[in-house]
């Protein structure tokens, strides 16, 4: 469904991605793990069109994305819950969710998806009229994911959904990720919390300073020596 071939992205003169190649097949949950600064967020931003690769190709269902603007990419079926959540602080929860469906015009479908999102995250239902900036970290994360779902994406990008959240919430969020995937959405998940990410993923890539250094199924990566030492904190 999604394929990156030798993508190299620069920030000014600094090369953040040094030739990333990866694949995401329909229906999968694929995860990208790595430590801080490895280039995980840059990868998602590049796919979404917020950063442009200087070299390389990004193919989504056969279409090349590297030269398309972000709003077109969203309309093609890719949406994201970005790093830092980036909710619209002075809009209400309801308005945030509605903004997620901005690129759509089918009123019924939007209403359905709103229901779906609120069912996935019941906490949000209680806070529909509340300004998003006043929500707790966990609630904002739920809102960010829900908002991304409102675009009815075929591919959902999740950037560090566990960041700054209490462990119980993290489990909840990942449980929801599985549910979303079971409902039919392909997921590309970027995470620092390697354990949880690999637990829910079908396949995974390990990113280190802009390069992919390891690629395997989720369970295999969980068992791998390298991964356990470097990312799972075991000796």
């Amino acid at each position, binding site marked *: 469904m999604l394929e990156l071939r030798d993508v190299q992205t620069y920030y000014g003169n600094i090369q953040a991605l040094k030739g990333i190649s990866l694949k995401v097949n329909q229906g999968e949950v694929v995860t990208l793990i790595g430590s801080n600064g490895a280039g995980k967020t840059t990868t998602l931003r590049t796919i*979404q*069109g*917020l950063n442009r690769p200087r070299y390389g190709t990004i193919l989504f269902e056969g279409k090349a994305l590297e030269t398309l*603007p*972000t*709003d077109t990419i*969203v*309309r093609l079926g890719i*949406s*994201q819950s*970005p790093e830092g959540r*980036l*909710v*619209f*602080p*002075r*809009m209400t929860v309801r*308005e945030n969710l*509605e*903004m*997620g469906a*901005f*690129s759509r015009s089918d009123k019924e479908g939007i209403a359905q998806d709103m229901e779906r999102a609120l069912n996935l995250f019941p906490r949000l239902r209680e806070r529909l009229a509340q300004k998003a900036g006043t929500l707790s970290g966990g609630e904002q994360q739920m809102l960010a994911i829900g*908002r*991304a779902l409102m*675009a009815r994406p075929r591919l959902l990008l999740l950037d560090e959904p566990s960041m700054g959240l209490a462990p119980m919430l993290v489990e909840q969020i990942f449980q929801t990720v599985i549910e979303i995937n079971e409902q039919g959405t392909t997921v590309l998940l970027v995470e620092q919390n390697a354990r949880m990410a690999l637990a829910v993923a079908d396949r995974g890539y390990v990113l280190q300073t802009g390069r992919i250094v390891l690629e395997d199924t989720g369970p295999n990566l969980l068992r791998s020596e390298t991964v356990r030492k470097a990312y799972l904190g075991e000796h």
Partner: protein
Amino acid sequence: MATTSPTVRTGSALPRWARNLALTLLILYIVLLVGPIAGLDAPRIWQSIAAEPKTLVQVALVGLANGSIIAIIALGYTLVYGIIELINFAHADVFMLTAFMSLTVLGAIGVDQKSSSGQIFVGVLVALVVAVLFGALLNASIERLAYRRLRNAPRLAPLISAIGVSFILQNLGLFWGGLRIIFPVMGVNAAAPKTFPQLLPEGILFQDGPIIFRQKDLIIILASVAFMIALRLFVQYTRLGKAMRATAQNRDAAKIMGINVDTVIAFTFLLGGGLAGVAGLLVGLYNGTIVFNMGLTAGLRAFTAAVLGGIGNITGAMLGGFLIGLLAAFSDVYFSSRWTNAWVFAILVVILIFRPLGLLGEAGGEKA
């Protein structure tokens, strides 16, 4: 490095609040001491008000009327700043050009004091539509030509570009004012102020000594308020308005929603320019004269109003507009009209130093 520790630093005998208080009192004293030169002669002002309190009311009415126009111009500043954090220096000059356009249209149609009410109404309506369209297109073109490429340049580049545009527009106004051959309504001298026809009804609605409230005052205030409310509703409830708010609150997130940010920004400039058009017509109708360099004063007041209310905040701009209008009227009558610009500017400096977010602003700049 801020010292937040409870230990007192040597050499600093007073706690922080006392130092601030002393500084404030010192500044107030200096203002009282030197103020009379700039017209701030407190005892004289007090006496004047006490002797004729009704004049104060009249001053307030004039202030509200002019303030409503300032508010509309302020909205233009605040919309643009909220969305791309640029002080659109050229905004006030767009306002000036729309005033010229309004005059030209009225002159071309041939509407003046002697026309019938029906003719005047139609004439003003046509001038309004033309002014709004002209302002909108002009503002959007400026964005496209002079600002868009600089969006990622160091901060000061678009500001300097805006100053350049301001000068270009002023020269345009000067040139326009000299086009007597095409627009006789422009009068003899290019640089001289132009007279607007007296089209607003002068009938007195309320009179009590020095207080005179005319139909035209009411019309201006109502018209301004109507446009302000319309803008507020637009931004709050329409799809494009929400896109504007989203883009102002977080540009990347707005992109991820599928919002075409370039289009939204262009539209914001259209909107701001259209508002400038409204203000341009209103100012001509209400004040009766327009001149090619009126952008400087109007811009200073409107920008101060926007900052006072909280830059980026629409309600704030409206509130700020009225407040600055009141201040300017008060200064004109009770201080000295030669110093009014200085006082308005002093307010700007004071706000920026002591409460940069303005009255209604929140951290990060707010749209609604």
